């Protein structure tokens, strides 16, 4: 299992660990995990989680590096705010925080933000999160402006005129429950436009949390054209479908919505064949009252850090990925996509995983402040048993 670790990570391990590994039964020693999208709820939403609580949950579950989107309160568009956040994430939560700055001022989609300043402040890339652009010309010109400063853009593709008001994948399950649907084209229409803009501007782009079969096909096309693009999928999309909404299960309410079995299979194939580069947690912790409302009036989000590794182990058991491919998807590729390879390698570390360890998802076994998960009370298999982070 030591072979899975890059040289620098092997060298950073205490010799006691390598000796211990020789006697361990079927454990995996992985490099530290890198999460391309988690919401740690600071600043502005500390009722759901804090850098301290979510940082500790991330660290205990193998994540040493976490990327956060800019849709906090206040919005991440001020270089001086970022430094303090990163410092507190390390001090209080023990994790390295990497920030996406706002692509447009106030995320309002009207004009570019202070992108040069954000780069100087240490943002790894810029993004408009799931907020819309006023029109395609704004998007085009904003991308040109970002390209000027060599900034990468993270997209969360969604066409609001198609998704507005929707709370579930538009299909039989939503229809049966009388829930307003979000058609898959809400994602792919936006993705198509954004890919063409990338082709036009030449900007490097990452597309996060893809959920549809057609999105995978579009990414395959874009990569075939050698566009500078990468993409990820949220871990829950690989294990859940809209069937999990059964009985108005608000714990399965997430945006983009859980989609059909066909979509899920396509996402898994995309992961296997390399079209999808990475898996993110899309961690969204919520307090106990956020889901205490009728489905559509509850708050969207799943708390994912604590269940992430068990679901990753399941992908290996399901023959979707080998352990080495898994390391690429949750450790090495995300580090490259975030542009933090050098820092990642210099910090080093390692994560010991028991892929066979069975455990139950309960309030006690979840470290995140958010206990909002459709896996609550389920028995899962696979867990991080130790992290070797400096």
């Amino acid at each position, binding site marked *: 299992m030591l072979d899975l670790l890059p040289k620098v990570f092997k060298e950073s391990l205490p010799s006691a660990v390598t000796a211990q590994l020789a006697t361990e039964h079927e454990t995996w020693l992985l490099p530290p995990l890198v999460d391309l999208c988690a919401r740690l709820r600071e600043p502005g939403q500390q009722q759901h989680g804090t850098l301290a609580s979510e940082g500790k949950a991330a660290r205990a579950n193998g994540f040493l590096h976490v990327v956060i989107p800019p849709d906090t309160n206040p919005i991440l568009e001020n270089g001086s705010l970022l430094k303090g956040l990163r410092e507190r994430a390390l001090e209080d939560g023990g994790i390295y925080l990497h920030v996406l700055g706002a692509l447009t001022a106030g995320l309002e989609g009207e004009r570019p933000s202070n992108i040069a300043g954000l780069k100087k402040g240490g943002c790894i890339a810029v993004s408009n999160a799931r907020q819309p652009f006023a029109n395609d010309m704004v998007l085009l010109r904003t991308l040109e402006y970002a390209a000027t400063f060599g900034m990468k853009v993270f997209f969360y593709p969604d066409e609001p005129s198609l998704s507005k008001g929707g709370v579930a994948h538009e299909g*039989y399950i*939503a*229809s049966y*429950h*009388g829930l307003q*649907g979000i058609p898959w084209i809400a994602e792919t229409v936006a993705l198509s436009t954004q890919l063409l803009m990338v082709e036009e501007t030449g900007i490097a782009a990452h597309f996060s949390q893809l959920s549809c079969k057609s999105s995978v096909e579009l990414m395959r096309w874009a990569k075939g054209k050698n566009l500078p693009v990468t993409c990820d999928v949220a871990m829950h999309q690989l294990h859940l479908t809209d069937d999990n909404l059964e*009985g108005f299960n608000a714990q399965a309410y997430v945006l983009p919505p859980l989609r059909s079995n066909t979509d899920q299979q396509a996402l898994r194939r995309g992961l296997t064949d390399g079209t999808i580069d990475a898996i993110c947690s899309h961690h969204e912790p919520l307090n106990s009252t956020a889901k205490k*409302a*009728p489905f*559509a009036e509850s708050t969207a989000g799943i708390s994912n850090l604590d269940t992430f590794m068990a679901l990753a182990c399941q992908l290996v058991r399901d023959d979707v990925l080998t352990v080495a491919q898994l390391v690429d998807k949750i450790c090495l590729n995300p580090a490259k996509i975030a542009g933090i390879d050098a820092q990642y390698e210099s910090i080093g570390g390692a994560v010991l995983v028991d892929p066979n360890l069975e455990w139950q998802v309960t309030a006690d076994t979840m470290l995140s402040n958010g206990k909002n998960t459709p896996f609550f009370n389920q028995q899962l298999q696979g867990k991080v048993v130790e992290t070797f982070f400096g």
Partner: protein
Amino acid sequence: MTTSEKNSAKNTVSPTEYAKFDHNTIHQKLNKSLSRPQLNSDGSIRHFLGVEGLNKAQLQAIIAKAETFFDDKGQLINSPELEGCTVMNLFFEPSTRTRTTFEVAEKRLGANVLNIDIERSSTKKGESLRDTLWNLQAMTADIFVVRHSASGAAHFMATEVTPDIAIINGGDGWHAHPTQGMLDMLTIHREAPRPFEELSVAIVGDIKHSRVARSDISALQTLGVKDIRVCAPRTLLPKGMARFGVKVYEDMDSCVTDCDVIMGLRIQNERIGSPLLASSNEYYKHYGITPERVALAKPDAIVMHPGPMNRGVEIASSVADGAQSVILTQVNNGIAIRMAVLSLAMEGQRAHQAAGK
């Protein structure tokens, strides 16, 4: 080929599509999840949240109970089964017909009735539905009749209230309107020319936004109707409609040919967020329940509509007021069904409380 066969062949959405899916298995699974909170361990009704998941005997029991509220001349009677009980009508969205018929039913059963106008009260001040509910239950009541714009609201409330309160769903979002569904079943039981098992039922109109359609389809299936047809332009059909186990039509003439029951649905303009129809005139031309279309159905077919009707859009006035219309009978039956559901839910609550003691 007969006219009917030719018309059937015109279906633009293949009715065979639904056959690909084992809708019985899927429905059983989904129905079970939705019915779980509403039954006591002995199968009696504790809350009345939807018809999904209730079996044929349970639906027949509701119909039979409703029948007991008619005298020999077919007039509604009073029955003091809820004397000493308090019923709160919690309407989070506007309603006249449903709220009034519930109130009449409650008073005919001797209940103390409180109408809480939540639409203009605490929720407008930012209070969560959960807190509103907890405050109301602190005022003590036996039954909450609830209407809410969010699908699943009644199910949510059933999980939040104390065990001493029964929830009756007076309509939730696009999801369910189970007392309307059951009054439609009572009407068909009393007025249709044939038993449920032999009927062909056409449901036409805005199915996508209709909670009535979902409850009707579920109840009709449970009561044994094998030929359920739905018809609407694609913009008013929910995605995956064929998987409900119904035949989907886009051609109205084909849909109503040789059927026993034509159920019209209101176009829910207030729920439609984007332009789904070209014009009222075009809709009426292609999907209106006209005398000519009623003539395509069996000669003794009945015409139903949950109201309020848009005359000249969904239905011709001559049909609405005609000999085959049972629309006003539906309203009258609605009181009997609501009396039955209130009575059975109270009975179920008492059984639940007795079992607890």
